[in-house]
């Protein structure tokens, strides 16, 4: 196994006027290629901040983030954008699709931003992904014409169009009903089994159980770690953490 992501002594401080808020307090972790890692914690615990910093959406206050041999915290905005485009796929709770573009255009968008790729190749990839995710018949529709589950599938297809090294999913089932949520998780698991490294932030033990292991965050620190698979055990550990914290 090779280390894909290496985070060392990561700190993130948000400052609004005189008020400082420390979201991450020296987190270190490693993610191996092919891992499916879930991050759990209460609201405000720092899990989304960790995901954003690893995904190059935000810069750490101190510490370093290495991914696929590159140090993200030393990159400028343009380098980070190019890195995100080629190495990272994002799936969000609220899908974040572009409303006035069709499903196909949404999926193809990250690839089209890369000027070197040929349109035919991009079209082939998008059709393959839409087929695989069962939404090829929705290709010419707009996001508002689709159900939540279908929209999240479009977001997943978009995330995979550039064959990312790492998939980052932030509460991917948080805005879906149980059945749609399960379908989305099945898709993510399916990709992971094909070798896709995935880091997922979730509140739901039912989602976290699909991961190889689960990291628990509280007050900006990783406070526990356990293997995935057992939904009840994960839920219990989460409750324990809450009680210890209160």
């Amino acid at each position, binding site marked *: 196994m090779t280390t894909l992501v290496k985070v060392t002594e990561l700190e993130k401080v948000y400052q609004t006027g005189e008020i400082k808020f420390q979201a991450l307090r020296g987190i270190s972790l490693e993610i191996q290629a092919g891992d499916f890692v879930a991050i759990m914690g209460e609201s405000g615990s720092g899990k989304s*901040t960790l995901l*954003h910093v690893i995904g190059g*959406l*935000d810069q750490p206050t101190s510490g370093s983030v290495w991914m696929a041999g590159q140090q993200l915290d030393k990159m400028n*905005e*343009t380098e980070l*954008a*190019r890195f*995100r*485009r*080629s190495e990272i796929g*994002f799936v*969000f709770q*609220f899908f*974040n*699709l*572009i*409303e*006035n573009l069709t499903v196909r255009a949404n999926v193809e*968008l*990250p690839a*089209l*931003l*890369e*000027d070197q790729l040929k*349109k035919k190749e991009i079209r082939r990839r998008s059709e393959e992904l839409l087929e695989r995710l069962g939404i090829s018949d929705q290709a010419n529709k*707009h996001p508002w014409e689709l159900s939540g589950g279908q929209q999240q599938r479009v977001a997943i297809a*978009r995330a995979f169009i*550039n064959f990312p090294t790492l998939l980052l999913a932030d509460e991917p089932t948080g805005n879906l009903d149980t059945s749609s949520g399960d379908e989305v998780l099945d898709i993510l698991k399916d990709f992971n089994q094909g070798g896709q490294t995935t880091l997922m932030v979730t509140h739901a033990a039912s989602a976290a159980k699909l991961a190889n292991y689960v990291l628990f965050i509280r007050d900006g620190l990783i406070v526990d770690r356990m293997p995935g698979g057992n939904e009840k055990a994960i839920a219990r550990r989460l409750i324990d953490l809450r009680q210890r914290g209160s």
Partner: protein
Amino acid sequence: MSAVWKKIVADLFHRRWITFLVTCTVIVSAALLTLALSTLLNLSGPYDKLFDELNSAHLWLHFKPYRVSSMDIRRIEALPGVVDSTDVQYSYFSQVTISNETRAWVDLRVIPLEPPNVHSLKVIAGRYLLPGKDEILIEKYAADTYHVAVGDMIEVTREDNTKAALPVIGIAYDPMYDTYRSNQLPSLFVSQDTFRSQFPDQDTWVWSVGLRLADPEAVDEVLDEIESMRSSEFVDTHTDWRDAKESAVFSVQLTFAFLSAFSIFAIFATILIVVSVVSSMVLSQIRQIGILKAIGFTGNQVSLLYVGQYAIISLVGAGLGFILGLILAPLPLQTITASLGTTYYPPFSFLLMGLVFLIIPGTNILAAWAAARRGAKANVIRSIATGAESPLQKPFWGTRFIEYLGAPMTIVMGFNDTFAKPIRAILTGLNLTLGVIGIVFGLTLSGTLQTYRENPALLGIVYDAFVTRQDSSDGRAQRILSQAPGVQAFYGEYRLRVKTLDGEEFLLRAVEGELSAFPFYIPEGRFFYLDTNEAIVGRGLLDWLDLEIGDSLTLTLAENDRRTETWTIVGVYPEPADAGQRMIVPLSSVLALDRHAASESYYLKVDQNVDLLKLRKYIEPDKDTDLTLTLVEEAIPSSVIFLQLAIFMLGGILVAIAVVNVFIMSLLSTQEKIRVVGILKTIGMIPFQVVVMIITSAGVLGMLAVLIGIPAGLLLTRVLLTTLSNAFGFGLVSVSVNVLVIIFLIPIIISISLLGSLIPARWASRISIVRVLRQE
């Protein structure tokens, strides 16, 4: 009510930059409107003000020699309609030699040494007459015609043909000098002592008197009373202040047409700018309107909110803009004031203020109210979800087309953004288009002025110089001119006062000679054939007599209606005098009316490199020669630069407003789609691509504005100028434009548009993705 007020204050102060920029737009719009209205309301203001300042006479009576007595004058002054008079003024028609070379017939007039109570003169150069000195004050029109400057010497011919040289010590403007009255000689003013010493024989003096009337419009009634005082006619000619004013005003007719076009366009542009800015501003806040309705605001409260905001902004803006407009107001009128030799600051007027404060806040409030009503009627959920308009579901065909052409995705998205919300795009585009129209308008007016300056034939001045004769016969004059060095061609002219069968009098120009060598500009119809009874006429005459090309006109001499002659009108020419109320016919055709008709003045076309001294020496070999050569000066005075400045100022203001508006709209639309920008950056759009995407939208609007604005500007200028010049009796205006300049305009406007959106684009490219995502 207090909730609405609190929200008004919060909106105005929370988005203080937007408030500031919209207020600036309103200020500039109000200034533009003030400028346009004050110009339009004061076109004849400089003349009227000067007339009042000088307490000028409304009616001048010039008496026949030996026919009038002091008693007659006293009886005229005692008429009920007469409130004041200049007392009798004496004059003498004398031939003078100016600066040892130009000879002319002038009216030497006596004026009091102290500026009189009635009809004083406006000294515009040098000084007024001093006691005990033999000196001359020359009237401005005479000074302009004969290029006389203060310090020049004028040689006056006495009754006994001896000469006396007098220095010119000043140039004065006489508002009652009718520049286009063919029988009014140029005036030179001297003191009573100088006059008596040069022309001691009182029997040769011509008497005249100027009258101030109780009712300035009652000139004809007073004149009837005067003429009915005696059984025999004793008034030779008279000057009506309304004719003099018309002449003074007509001398700047082209300026009037241009200024009126400028003002009318500026008024419409102002209203459209205000409506588009306010409407698009309110429409960009429909999401907020949805939220306000969701928390309990009624439709009326929402309307009140925006009406209140824009009422405050527009009242502040209108006040400051009105002051700014008043400060700038003299500029467009400089062209007129310069030609009248005066200065003029349009006065503060309650009418002007009322109009500005009615139009600017009125359009602001109406536009805000209409947009807010539209927003308040929208479905709450839909308003919150999609804002003012749902983006179009299908991409614009142009977007698909440029995508098909292989344009980069960022440009395709920017292009699509322009048309995704068409109403907003139209409102922003409208502003930019107005800017383009303004510039095209300015360039076209300027180009047209330049063309007229370079080609005076368009103004009806087809000759380089003219020669007048006194005692020499027509044959002798023509013989001299046909052999004069450097004269390519000439034609002769004889002028007759004629009248229609309805009694309408005007001046007929009967011409003969090498007419085909002169570039007569005939915008309608054709030139007449020689030896026929065909005529070409000024537009003013056609309109006055309600005639058309092809119509016939029967005329008699004004003084003698025993014989009549009929002409067929075959064309229209730009007549520069008498409000275009003149007519040109072949000299041969007037012989039936006046069998002594023979050319009295001659119009010359000279070689480009003519030796003027040699030519003058040939035509005027010695001081006693009665032929006088006068060169034609520039048809359009250099003071027209002020008009050009004003027009470019208008263009500049409109472009500045358009840039500010593009900036506001780009900022608002970027704020609206900040979530989309966040998503695009998340999936890998680099900052440069964000900038390209946003400025592409502005660039497309700029391109559309150019495509629509240039032809619209050209059309508008043509229509406005033609309409106005026709209204001023000037006839068709030949509109010219420099095509290269217009082509050069295309990249400039697109660049300006791109520039307007650059700051919002750069701001969007730097937004924190995390902050955007957290706002969900």
